[in-house]
């Protein structure tokens, strides 16, 4: 059932074991902390940021809910409307519908086919027992990463961690073969027609998983194409890079009111995507023609030295900015550890630094190809 993992995340705020319903909220709020959880395509993350002297409270919460969440049937049923409401709120945004269609069209077999929130019909039929079983199967200390960042003494913190998590039993984690997406052999196109006033376009190209040697080249390619905005999910904020080919080709020319390029570091082969909001009166075909020309140029000739320097500098800059504060550092380290190891990240950044203009051209020629492309056109039809 799609959406199980995300539903588990919701239930982990509802008590169990030594935590009564509402306790997490009360315990963390009372010390001025902030807390939340996020379900990603590859991992689920929970966090608390608390004053340093209250580390123990955060460890208690995480250890307790790792194995002892209650999943009370009444609470589970009450949460159904909340999860569906979250999905319906997203459905109100055309960008969400485009994103869901992009991944659903680009991936037929791999679980990247659906977004973490899941499909509404699955959410409507989800049973407590199936979600609870999912939780018990995957939530165990031997399948978890614990990241601590901030003002603590490592030795004493390790003592507390052992006390909190040591008693938790490991689980036999299923390590079967991961689903492999069959090779795509032609462009896929999907059209969405909805009432509204603004049109959107998103194009995705298949790219390899994050361990692949070409990922470093794709980082610089994205920097040249749309401006680099960091690896982490939450660091970039609303900043709009302008010194890049998409901005100049699509926004300065008034074909789009915004345009961006990017990809997420993923455990399995994923997508590099370009998205744009069309200026009123502009047809998708006009925008795509220009985008095709931008992509063709990237494939035909290497970027200039100035473009390369700028892309490298943006990567360096975001590597500083996206670890500002303990929360973002925790997110960043957690993401890297979930993918493999943060130990290898400096080496990865060195590889990014060494990418040549010809590497970028080659990466564009290899990955920005029609056989691996998925195009989603969102057509707004008639003002509501």
């Amino acid at each position: 059932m799609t959406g199980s993992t995300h539903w588990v995340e919701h239930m982990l705020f509802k008590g169990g074991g030594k935590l009564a319903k509402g306790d997490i909220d009360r315990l963390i709020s009372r010390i001025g902390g902030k807390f939340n959880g996020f379900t990603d395509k590859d991992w689920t993350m929970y966090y608390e940021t608390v004053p340093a002297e209250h580390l123990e409270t955060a460890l208690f919460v995480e250890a307790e809910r790792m194995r002892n969440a209650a999943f009370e049937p009444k609470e589970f049923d009450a949460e159904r409307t909340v999860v569906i409401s979250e999905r319906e709120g997203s459905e109100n945004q055309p960008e969400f519908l485009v994103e869901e269609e992009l991944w659903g069209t680009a991936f037929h077999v791999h679980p990247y086919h659906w977004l973490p929130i899941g499909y509404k019909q699955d959410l409507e039929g989800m049973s407590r027992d199936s979600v609870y079983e999912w939780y018990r199967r995957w939530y165990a200390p031997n399948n978890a990463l614990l990241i601590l960042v901030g003002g603590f003494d490592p030795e004493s913190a390790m003592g507390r961690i052992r006390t909190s998590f040591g008693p938790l039993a490991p689980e036999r984690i299923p390590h079967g073969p991961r689903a492999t997406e069959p090779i795509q052999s032609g462009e896929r196109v999907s059209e969405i027609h909805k009432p509204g006033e603004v049109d959107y376009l998103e194009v995705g190209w298949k790219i390899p998983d994050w361990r692949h040697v070409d990922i470093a080249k794709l980082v610089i390619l994205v920097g040249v194409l749309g401006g680099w905005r960091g690896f982490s999910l939450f660091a970039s904020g609303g900043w709009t890079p302008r010194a890049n080919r998409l901005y100049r080709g699509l926004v300065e020319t008034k074909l789009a009111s915004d345009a961006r390029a990017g990809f997420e570091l993923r455990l399995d082969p994923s997508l590099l995507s370009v998205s744009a909001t069309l200026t009123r009166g502009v047809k998708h075909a006009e925008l795509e023609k220009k985008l095709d020309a931008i992509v063709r140029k990237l494939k035909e000739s290497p970027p200039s030295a100035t473009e390369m320097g700028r892309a490298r500098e943006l990567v360096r800059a975001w590597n500083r900015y996206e670890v500002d504060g303990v929360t973002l550092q925790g997110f960043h380290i957690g993401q890297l550890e979930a993918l493999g190891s943060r130990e290898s990240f400096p080496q990865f950044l060195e590889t990014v630094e060494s990418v040549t203009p010809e590497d970028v051209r080659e990466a564009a020629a290899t990955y920005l190809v029609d056989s691996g492309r998925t195009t989603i056109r969102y057509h707004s039809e008639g003002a509501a």
Partner: protein
Amino acid sequence: MIPRPDRMELKGGGRVLWLPNPASPFVSFHGSLSAGVAAEAPGEEGVAEFLSRLLLSGTKHGTARRLSQSLEGRGATLEFHTAEDLLIFRGRTTRAAAGTAFGIAADCLSNPVIPAKEVERVRGELLTDIRRDRESTREHAEKELLARVFPSGHPYGRDPKGTEESVTSIEPRGLLEFHERCYRREGLIVSLAGDVDEGFVTSTVAKALESIPEGASPDAAPPPTPERPSAGFVDLPHKSQADIAIGLQSIPRNHPDYYDLNLANLLFGVIGMYGRLGASVREEKGLAYYSFARLRALRSGGHWSIVAGVNPVRLEDALRAISEELDRIRERPFTEEEIETGRLNQIGGLAVNLERNAEVAGALHGMELHGLGLDFLARYPEIVKGLGRESVQGAGERYIRKQDCSLVVAGPIGGRTFAL
């Protein structure tokens, strides 16, 4: 121990505040001029936002491309935004690139050119954004609520973007006139946090900012007159979810009741997963994914509001639950335990909410804007500890009044109307 920031007054007007963080490899900055929506004269609706979007489109000393190449080639960011009272500029830069970043920021503020091509680009961008907002149930409900809470034409009730009509009719001459009148150094406030010290501020930041033209700031917005509560219903039949927005005018930031009301608001609809409101509407009744309250205390007034995203079938249930929570402010006063939890949250949250350079820079800016004093962060715990149950409860009852709230519902409502 919370360190005390430093402050410098610029010759000819303007103030700079800074708080070093020696561990940080970069500096975040947060600046403003008194050139927000409140500075717009009648007939200038939307001009402040339009101009702020053009500031990176070229100056007398550099084209748009040169500006973006210089900033991004050095890994610096710079953004301009328009708020009710202020034009805000903020960004991040290394110390090595700071001369360029602040030089460009000052140049954009002092010497903008208004290229016709860029005017048309921004016009298209704004029109698209206005249409996009109209399609968003939440944006639509919140904007419509503000228009009902404040008197017609008051800057706090207007969408900074203006309307399709105003955006369509804005001319370059009007933008230049607004710039000439409002982009003046008297109201300039710039705060910095991170890799910063006095020498850096003097040699790099102040030097750049002193090129901004001297002169007096526009007057602050007039305090809004009271407005009778009203209701509005926006049918967007193709949407999945409806958004409810409920609210009324509130107090300015420098009002003596601010801290009491802020704590009452925290307990009502902010703390944890959104206070009493979230506990009832989301946790207990499962009616919404989000349901929270917000207090926005500005220079000349403010507003308090609730926003909730709700399945259209359950709108009546959600409104009933919200209405009950509003009644409970009087019927079930905040307990001593709630008040203590709120106080502890605000005191503990001081460190937690100032963990990033940008958050520190934003806090310093607010301190200067509202005249809170350089020792504000150090005093804040004592201010909060001094908030008593009676005064917090009193503020809640005085300023969160259901009978004075306006209501807007936007979404697939099928022609229905609602009441609190």
